[in-house]
């Protein structure tokens, strides 16, 4: 293991101690299988051309826990999130410095296969974006891509994924209908199911509820609670209640700088930084 990763593990170990001993509130169970550093950023910066949108971030994202990313609009939340599965590759002038490790491997390494990486790090976007295909084909898209052809296996995967996304009961009788006919909330859960169908290790959610009504939002939040412990989840949100409801850890970004990264219960009750305090008490924005 390279020295940076070792260092990250060391820091993560202390973080886990913190979680176990102090900051995990009683209603949030400790996850025994998790807590290892899954994504580790070290002096990690992201540029759009000359502009440094994310500045020298150092952070460990712990496996199987939910990490929320908050901060005012334009502070680099999406940029950071999209850098983890290299979706920023789509933007022509986007570049990075520093290192970002996933499972001990360099995400931006020369020999990294970004296609394989994205298979392991799934993403759900702000606006639901199902393909203009049937519900079934949407879910089966990923598995088919990765070589599953057998209809029975596909059926099983589709059902399992839809159940995990708490959508099965609503759509089981119309799997062959076009996914664009679903409601916004259902579409978003479909997108989650579609991502789960490729069995990722990490789930990245970029403001997944900002286009949804409160009821649909509650469903997605419930879903995140369901998935907690099975997947490492990172969720960008501009809604601080949501962050405090669903996450175990919170990262607060301000103008590209990771100002504070701490267990959620701590960050919202006893923030270490003045800026964090001002933001969560609503003095910003």
């Amino acid at each position, binding site marked *: 293991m390279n020295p940076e990763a070792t260092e990250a593990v060391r820091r993560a170990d202390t973080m886990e101690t913190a979680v176990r001993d102090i900051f995990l509130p009683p209603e949030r169970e400790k996850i025994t299988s998790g807590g290892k550093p899954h994504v580790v950023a070290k002096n990690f910066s992201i540029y759009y051309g000359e502009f440094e949108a994310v500045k020298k971030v150092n952070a460990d994202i712990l496996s199987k826990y939910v990490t929320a990313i908050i901060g005012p609009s334009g502070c680099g939340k999406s940029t950071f999130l999209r850098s983890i599965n290299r*979706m920023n590759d*789509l933007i022509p002038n986007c570049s990075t410095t520093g290192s970002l490790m996933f499972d001990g491997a360099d995400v931006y390494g020369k020999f990294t296969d970004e*296609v394989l990486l994205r298979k392991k790090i*799934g993403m759900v976007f702000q606006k639901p974006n*199902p393909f*203009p295909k049937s519900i079934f084909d949407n879910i089966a*898209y*990923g598995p088919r*891509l990765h070589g599953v052809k057998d209809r029975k296996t596909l059926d099983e995967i589709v059902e399992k994924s839809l159940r995990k996304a708490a959508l099965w009961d609503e759509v089981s009788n119309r799997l062959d209908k*076009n996914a664009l006919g679903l409601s916004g909330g259902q579409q978003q859960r479909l997108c989650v199911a579609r991502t789960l169908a490729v069995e990722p290790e990490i789930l990245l959610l970029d403001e997944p509820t900002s286009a949804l009504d409160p009821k649909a939002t509650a469903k997605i939040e419930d879903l995140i609670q369901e998935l907690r412990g099975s997947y490492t989840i990172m969720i960008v949100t501009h809604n601080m209640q949501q962050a405090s409801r669903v996450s175990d850890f919170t990262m607060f970004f301000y103008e590209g700088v990771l100002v504070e990264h701490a267990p959620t219960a701590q960050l919202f009750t006893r923030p270490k930084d003045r800026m964090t305090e001002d933001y969560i008490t609503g003095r910003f924005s």
Partner: protein
Amino acid sequence: MNLGTRKLLDRSFTALGIGSIVIMAMTLLIVLVPIVTNGLGALVFKGTIEHRKMLAAEFNRGDRAELERQTALADSSRKPVYAMMAAFEQELTGMDEPRRQQYQQQYAQVRSAIQTLLGPIPGDPLPALTRSQYGQTRWEKAEERLHEVLYEKKWDYSNPDAPAKEYSVSRAAGFEGTSLVKLFPYVEKNIDRMLMPEWTLYWGFITDSSVDAHIFGGIWPEIQGTLFLAIGAMLFAFPLGVVAAIYFTEYAREGFFTSVLRSANSTLAGVPSIVFGLFGLAFFINTLKVSESKSVLAGSLTLAIMILPTIIRAAEEAILSVPKTYKEASLSLGSTKWNTIVTVILPAALPGIITGGVISLGRAAGETAPIIFTAAVSVGSAIGLADVFSSPTPALSWNIYNLASEHEAASEIRHVQYGMVLSLVTIVLLLNLSAIVLRARISQKLKG
């Protein structure tokens, strides 16, 4: 701006808009109505017994027994005409020299007019050209010919300042005092019985080959040639265009090379079609030697080059209009770029791509200039599918021009020309219509 002026401006703009739409519709009507009515004249017309004889002899079509019955009837009413002519010829030999000379020339005109009207005169050897083996096949032409039998055309030069005037003189008057004078009223009165006009629906106009350079028969070789050329062009241009569009939208890095390619593409779209025709001759036939001389292959390739820029543009636009979110979703599921293009982007862009393709197909079908030097011949029979690599073909667009300007009997066969125009317009219209339907269907499927 106050409310009054704003309303006035609104109103006048609305009026302007409606006005221009009305003018467009009128223009369309003015163009289309004669095309349709004249073109239909090639399919639906009053055909004479000569038409039915021709169909039976050349295309082996029609009810033989009925035709024989009608021929017998027609022949019996023609008999007196020929009898009168024979009698007059007899009478001529008995005349003294100056009178004979006076009548002989006039009689030759009458005889030839009768032959044009009714077909070869019994006893004469069978003419070599098919067009002379039958009388008038269309009733409206027969009526014109009848006039030539009855009247002599003369020119009035009396006023030296004005252009000469045409006037008709009754031929009957010229034969006053001979036995032939009875012929004219007889022919005029019995023309119906001699030619037996009937309303005819001639589907063969679309499915038959032409006989004797479009004097008789249909235009199937032209229709088939047009379809071959257009579809052939599509086979080359469509895949190539879509691939190029994918390259431009998904792979090309913005830079000097790409911008040169892009402007080359735009320039190509504006090049006059005759230039493509000459290029096709020079490049595909003379340089590459894809065929010995003109061929469907060479024509298709030339048309393909011509429509390529349009296809690329349409496909590019269609691909760019696919929501970026589809691409993101696909990539985030661990799909490769190529897989994303094939499974997500192209299906979503399909309606636009197809529309561009079909519009280009219509354009390829209608263009004349690119095929003049590379593929088109004026008269020919339908070629087999195997011959497309080596044989030229007649085609609608080129033959419309040819019939209008170069055919020796152009004015006799206007109906064929209009029939071709109507067929071409119909083909292009049908193609565009199918594009609209196809597009709507796919969009519907995508929307769910």
